[in-house]
C-alpha cells in the first residue's frame, strides 16, 4: 500500500512539473506573437508616446522572466488582468465558460459510458454476427468523420424544419429551464460523444469477447446461471477495468474536441472563448483560456493514472 502512496506522490510531483512547463510554453508562444499588445489595446491611431506609456504601465519593457513571474503570480492569485477585447477581468470571463464546458463534458461522458458500453456488450454477445458488423462499421465511420461534420449532419437531421426537436445553438442554464438545458445540451454532447464512443465500444467488445470465452464464464454457465447473469454479473464486471481506463484517458481528447463543437453549436464554453480570443488577438485572454484547458487536460490524465492504479492492484509502480 505504501508503494501505491509513493506512486501517487511521485505522479503528483510530476503533474506539478508538467503544469509549470506548460505555463512556460504558453507564455513563450504567446510572446512570440508579432502583434504589439499596447498597440492592439489603443488602436492604430494612438500616438507613439501613448503606446510607450501604456507599455511601461503594463510592464512590457521588463525582461521576459520578470514578465513571466508577474504573470505566474497572477495565475496563482487568480488575478489575470483584463481582456483586451471585452475589458472585463479575465477570471470573470473564464470561470463561467469553464463551468459551461464541464457540464457539456459531463453530459457527453454519460452518453459515452451508457451507450458505448451497451453497444460493446451487444457487439460481443453477437460476436461476428450481423449486428456486430453493423456496430463495427459504425465504429470505423465514427473515427473517420471529423466532429464538425457529424455535428452538421446531426443538425441537418434533428435540428431543422423536419424534426425541430433540438435547438442547433446556444445554452440555457438549468436553473432557468431544465428541459431547455437538456435540449440545448443534446446535439453538441451527442456530436462530441461519437468519437469517444467508438473507442469505448471497441475496447468493451474485445474485453467482453475474451471474458465470454473464459473458463469462469463457462463455469457460471455450467452452474445453470441465466444468460443475462453470465453476461452482466460475470463477464461485464471483469471487462470494465480496461474500459474505464480508456474512458478516463479520453477525457483529454474531449477537451480538444470541445473547441470545434462549441464553435459549431455556438455553445458559450471555454473552447469558443479561445477561438474568439485568437480571432481578436486578445493575448491575455488567449493565455489564460489555453492555460485552463491545458491544466484540465493534464489533470484529467493524472486522474486517469491514479484511477487505474486504484482499480488494478496488480500494476507495477516502478
Amino acid at each position, binding site marked *: 500500500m505504501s508503494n501505491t502512496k509513493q506512486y501517487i506522490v511521485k505522479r503528483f510531483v510530476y503533474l506539478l512539473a508538467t503544469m509549470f512547463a506548460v505555463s512556460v510554453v504558453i507564455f513563450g508562444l504567446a510572446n512570440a506573437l508579432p502583434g504589439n499588445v499596447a498597440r492592439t489595446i489603443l488602436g492604430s491611431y494612438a500616438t507613439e508616446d501613448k503606446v510607450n506609456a501604456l507599455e511601461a504601465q503594463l510592464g512590457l519593457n521588463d525582461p521576459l522572466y520578470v514578465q513571466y513571474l508577474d504573470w505566474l503570480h497572477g495565475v496563482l492569485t487568480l488575478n489575470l488582468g483584463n481582456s483586451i477585447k471585452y475589458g472585463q477581468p479575465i477570471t470573470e470571463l473564464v470561470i463561467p465558460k469553464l463551468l459551461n464546458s464541464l457540464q457539456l463534458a459531463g453530459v457527453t461522458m454519460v452518453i459515452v459510458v451508457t451507450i458505448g458500453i451497451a453497444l460493446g456488450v451487444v457487439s460481443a454477445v453477437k460476436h461476428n454476427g450481423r449486428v456486430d458488423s453493423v456496430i463495427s462499421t459504425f465504429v470505423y465511420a465514427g473515427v473517420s468523420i471529423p466532429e464538425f*461534420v457529424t455535428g452538421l449532419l446531426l443538425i441537418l437531421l434533428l435540428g431543422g424544419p423536419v424534426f425541430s426537436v433540438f435547438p442547433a445553438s446556444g445554452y440555457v442554464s438549468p436553473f432557468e429551464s431544465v428541459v431547455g438545458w437538456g435540449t440545448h445540451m443534446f446535439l453538441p454532447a451527442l456530436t462530441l460523444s461519437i468519437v469517444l464512443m467508438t473507442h469505448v465500444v471497441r475496447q468493451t467488445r474485445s474485453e467482453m469477447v475474451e471474458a465470454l470465452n473464459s473458463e469462469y464464464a463457462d463455469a457460471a454457465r455450467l452452474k445453470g446461471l441465466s444468460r443475462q447473469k453470465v453476461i452482466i454479473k460475470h463477464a461485464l464486471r471483469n471487462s470494465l477495468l480496461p474500459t474505464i481506463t480508456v474512458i478516463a484517458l479520453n477525457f483529454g481528447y474531449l477537451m480538444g474536441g470541445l473547441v470545434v463543437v462549441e464553435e459549431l453549436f455556438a455553445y458559450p464554453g471555454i473552447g469558443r472563448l479561445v477561438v474568439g480570443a*485568437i480571432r481578436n488577438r486578445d493575448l491575455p485572454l488567449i493565455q489564460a483560456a489555453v492555460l485552463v484547458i491545458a491544466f484540465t487536460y493534464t489533470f484529467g490524465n493524472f486522474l486517469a493514472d491514479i484511477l487505474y492504479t486504484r482499480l488494478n492492484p496488480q500494476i507495477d509502480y516502478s
Partner: protein
Amino acid sequence: MIPDNRLTKPTRTNRFYRLHRVADRLRWFTKNDKILYPSVVISVIMVVSVLGPYISPFDPTATHPTETYLAPNAKYLFGTDHIGRDLLSRVLIGGRSTLLLGVGSTALAMTFGVPIGLLAGIKGGYIDEAIMRVMDVIMSFPTLLLALILLTSLPSNVWTAMLAVGVVFIPKISRVVRSSTLEVKNEEYVEAARVRGESDGYIMFYEVLPNIIPPIAVESTIRVGYAIIIGASLSFLGLGAQPPAPDWGYMIAQSQNHIWQTPWFLIWPALFLGLTIFSFNVLGDGLRDELDPKVTGDQV
C-alpha cells in the same frame, strides 16, 4: 557469443534484408481486403485530385448567380452552392489541399519525429529522459488546441496549417519510433555493429531504421487520417484554407449557413472527406494486421 560472420560489415543485401521481406509481403497485401480496397480508393482520390482542373466541368471558383442552391441535375451533376458555383468541380479539386495537408504534415512530422525517436531510443539515459520530457510537455496540450496556438502568430493558409499539424505530431511519431527502437536495440545485428565500432548515427539509420519500417508505416498511415481531420477542423475554424479555395473542410464550414436551402452543399464534401479519412484508417488497420508490429500508435 556472436558468430564471426556477423562481425563483418553487412552487404547491401543483408542490410536491407527486412525491407526485402516487406516487399515480399507486398505481393500478398492484395489478398487482404483491408489493404486492397482502401489503397484503390486512396489512389482514385489522388488521381482525381491531380487531374481535377482537367476533368472538372466548370471553373471551381466561377459563380453562376442565376443558378444558386440547385439540387443535382443534368447540367450540374452535384448541384450548386449559395453563389452558384458547381459543387462537382469544387469537390473534384478540393481533395488537393486536403491530401496535401494530410500527407505533407505527416511527412514533416516524420522528418523530425523519426530521428528524434531513434536518438532517444539509442542513446538512452539522460538524453532519452530529456527528449521524452519535452515531448510530454508538447503532448500536454490537446492536439487541435496546440495547432491553434501555433497558428495565432502565422498567416492563415494551407501551408501554415500543414506546418502546425506537422509540429503537433512530432511527439507522437517520435514516441512510436523510440519504443520500436528499444525493442530492437539489443538484437544481435545491432550488437555486431557496435563491436565493429560503428557510430551511433550509422546504427540509427542503417541498422535500426530498416528494421522498424513496419511500425513506422502503420503509424504514418494512421497519422495521415488524423492530420486530415485536424487540418479540416482548422479550415472549419477559419485558420486553414482560405476563400475562395475549393477545400473540403472550408466548403463544409461554409455550408453551415446554407444547409436548409441545399443539403448537397454539405453532403458532397463531407462524403469525400469522410471516405478519405476512412480509407486511411482502414489501410492503417490492415497494415497493422499484416505487419503485426507490437508497437501501436496512441490516439489523437
